[in-house]
């Protein structure tokens, strides 16, 4: 990480932006001299080499180092890994019965809460977000990522006992980041992917599983992909091929359940039973 610097305006327009559901700007993607600049307004800039093999972070003045590290781990690193040709997705994953199950969804759909719920109830989590899959034999392995889980206050209150280790707060979100330990248990070895669950909107009154056709799964995997350069056609095409191979596996389902904390034990039991089938 480099010294703090002001975020000077750039002559070029960003080629891509991420915005929050409320319309607020979150990230701008620029091309600068053949490399990439990822700008988190008023927080930090990250200079990413064209090949994705090196990253340099520049905090905006007054932004603590912890905030920049948090942005790097949760936002920049998954993008950089995607640039390196890895399969990276917006998903959490937990270890179940010697394998892994992944939960894919948009921000706020419950993937971290679900992973944390397993991780404080006798199971171990592999990742909170930034799911990395590696092809192994005829399937895929889920790689463990950073051993921490980010939760909003209501999920924290429902799931985490007082005294759990947390990372220092960061300046752009009120989410707490819980470090893995005796209470929030982490699996630090790759596990074979047994199931991928795409989370519904919470309108279901009971736990429901619906098998996705390969074509549906392909679209869902692409939607939930991390990709640094959405204009890089060769990479997009290769990613589409990579994901198509994944979508052929008979392991993908849409999962919906009522988003109530008092229903989580029932949800976990249903997922465990479902993941063990077949």
């Amino acid at each position, binding site marked *: 990480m480099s010294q703090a610097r002001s975020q000077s305006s750039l002559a070029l327009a960003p080629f891509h932006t991420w915005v929050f559901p409320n319309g607020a700007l979150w990230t701008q993607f620029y091309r600068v001299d053949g490399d990439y600049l990822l700008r988190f307004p008023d927080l930090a800039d990250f200079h990413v080499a064209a090949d994705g093999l090196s990253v340099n972070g520049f905090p905006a003045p007054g932004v603590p180092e912890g905030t920049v590290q948090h942005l790097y781990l949760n936002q920049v690193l998954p993008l950089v890994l995607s640039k390196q040709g890895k399969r990276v997705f917006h998903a959490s994953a937990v270890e179940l019965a010697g394998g892994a199950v992944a939960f894919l969804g948009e921000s706020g759909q419950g993937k971290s809460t679900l992973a944390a719920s397993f991780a404080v109830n006798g199971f171990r989590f592999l990742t909170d977000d930034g799911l990395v899959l590696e092809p192994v034999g005829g399937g895929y392995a889920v790689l463990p990522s950073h051993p921490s889980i980010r939760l909003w206050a209501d999920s924290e209150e429902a799931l985490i006992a007082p005294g759990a280790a947390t990372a220092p707060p960061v300046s752009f979100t009120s989410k707490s980041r819980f470090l893995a330990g005796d209470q929030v248990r982490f699996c630090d070895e790759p596990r074979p992917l047994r199931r991928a669950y795409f989370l519904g909107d919470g309108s279901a009154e009971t736990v429901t599983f619906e098998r996705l*056709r*390969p*074509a*549906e*799964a*392909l*679209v869902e995997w*692409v939607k939930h992909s991390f990709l640094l350069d*959405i*204009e890089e*056609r060769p990479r*997009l*095409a290769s990613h*589409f*091929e990579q994901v*198509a191979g994944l*979508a*052929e596996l008979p392991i993908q389902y849409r999962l919906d359940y009522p988003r109530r904390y008092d229903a989580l034990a029932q949800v976990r039991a249903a997922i465990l039973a479902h993941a063990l089938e077949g």
Partner: protein
Amino acid sequence: MNLSDRISVPSQVMGRSVGDETVILDLESGTYFGLDPVGARMWALMGEGKTLGEVCDVMLEEYDVTRQRLEEDLLNLAGELAEKGLIVRQ
């Protein structure tokens, strides 16, 4: 869109068969579109530079369907794909 139109698939659009369906992706816009096997066959034939009428001729040999029904389905699909930029009229 009519049966004498000749169709092409833009260079930034690619398709991939998964299971018995095909998903089309526009690499530029990020638009996706799923096709059942019949739709996938229509799209593949359109991509060969045939007119829609010629696509119908080929498919009448392959499927048990009336020309009227096939033309309706083909024109509907072609209109929808063109609207999404997944095919263009030559």
